[in-house]
């Protein structure tokens, strides 16, 4: 897919699709601005806003296309929403579109974070700010626990013993023993992929 090729969406769609679902592909500036807007709206995570903007508001993708793109970005390493911006932008406008969406997603919040870093470096020891941040930290950890709980629920419902053991193993290795991530994943990923492959073959047989 070259940057100046015809709208890439049609090339990638193998199955017939409602033509109404796609407006004409946006220009590079429009992509940059759209991702800047969803990024700045995205308190506590950008995904919800990205989905709304891409699927509902601009109709650049159907809901299914969005889920497939997101699934791909979730299974690849790195920040999912950042991966999504690059993959999505490049589907519409080639690599230049990917870079435009990537820059739109990251540039404005990075500037904000840099300003906050400067403020923290100067005033981080002020007592009121310390207290407020302590409270926010507690709530932030609570939110993280809730996400973990929500993600665990399907495994618990299915009584998926293998997945639960893998999960606990990684939790203990990283959280309790503090082993390096690389070492843990170099063992855990092949084991998990292998077990999943064998289990699926058994189910299929």
């Amino acid at each position, binding site marked *: 897919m070259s940057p100046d090729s015809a709208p890439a969406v049609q090339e990638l769609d193998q199955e017939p699709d409602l033509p109404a679902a796609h407006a004409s592909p946006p220009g590079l500036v429009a992509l940059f601005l759209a991702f800047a807007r969803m990024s700045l709206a995205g308190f506590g995570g950008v995904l919800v806003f990205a989905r709304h903007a891409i699927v509902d508001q601009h109709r650049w993708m159907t809901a299914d296309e969005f889920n497939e793109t997101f699934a791909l970005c979730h299974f*690849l390493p790195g920040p999912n929403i950042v991966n999504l911006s690059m993959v999505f932008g490049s589907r519409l406008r080639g690599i230049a579109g990917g870079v435009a969406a990537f820059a739109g997603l990251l540039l404005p919040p990075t500037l904000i974070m840099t300003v906050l870093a400067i403020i923290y470096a100067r005033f981080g020891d002020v007592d009121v700010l310390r207290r407020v941040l302590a409270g*926010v930290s507690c709530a932030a950890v609570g939110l993280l626990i809730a996400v973990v709980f929500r993600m665990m629920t399907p495994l618990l419902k299915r009584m998926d013993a293998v997945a639960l053991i893998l999960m606990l193993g990684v939790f203990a290795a990283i959280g309790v023993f503090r082993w390096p991530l690389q070492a843990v994943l170099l063992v*855990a990923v092949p084991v998990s992929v292998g077990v999943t492959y064998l289990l699926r073959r058994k189910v299929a047989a």
Partner: protein
Amino acid sequence: MSSQSPIWALISTFGLMSLFAVGGAAAAVPEMHRIAVEVHRWMTDKQFADAYAIAQLSPGPNVLIVTLIGYAVAGIPGALAATLAMCLPTALLAYYVSRLLSRPGQSRWPGLIQAALVPLSIGLMAASALILARSTDRNIAALLLTATVAVIASVSRANPLWLLLAGGLLGFAGIV
């Protein structure tokens, strides 16, 4: 660039880490903590917890905690270097893989690998929660606040931002 330069340390650290950060930013938090607090001693435990809180409270992807770590290490150039190192390599990888997978006949493996990675991601995120809780929940009130937010966020669709602000207010009032 000298290998002793803090900028180079940031780029190599976060560039490599991003490639192992399966499951997104929250899964990478334990490794960020290990590297920034324990290995390089770039920041204290408390500063790391603060950085996580600021990143949660700010707009944009939560991975931007690396911007704060980068700034603590090497000022504005450090902030930009850490952000790009964490985000660009995997975004390019995603770009190439998505092109590869858009060819027909490749549909079986993504689903299988994804299913295999889900429990590992959850384990990593649970580890993040444990590590952050250790540095934030230093008293009963703090522990209660964390537990209450966890329950509310689990059973309702409350906007996370309000819960964070409520935590900030309780902190401001000196309760936590």
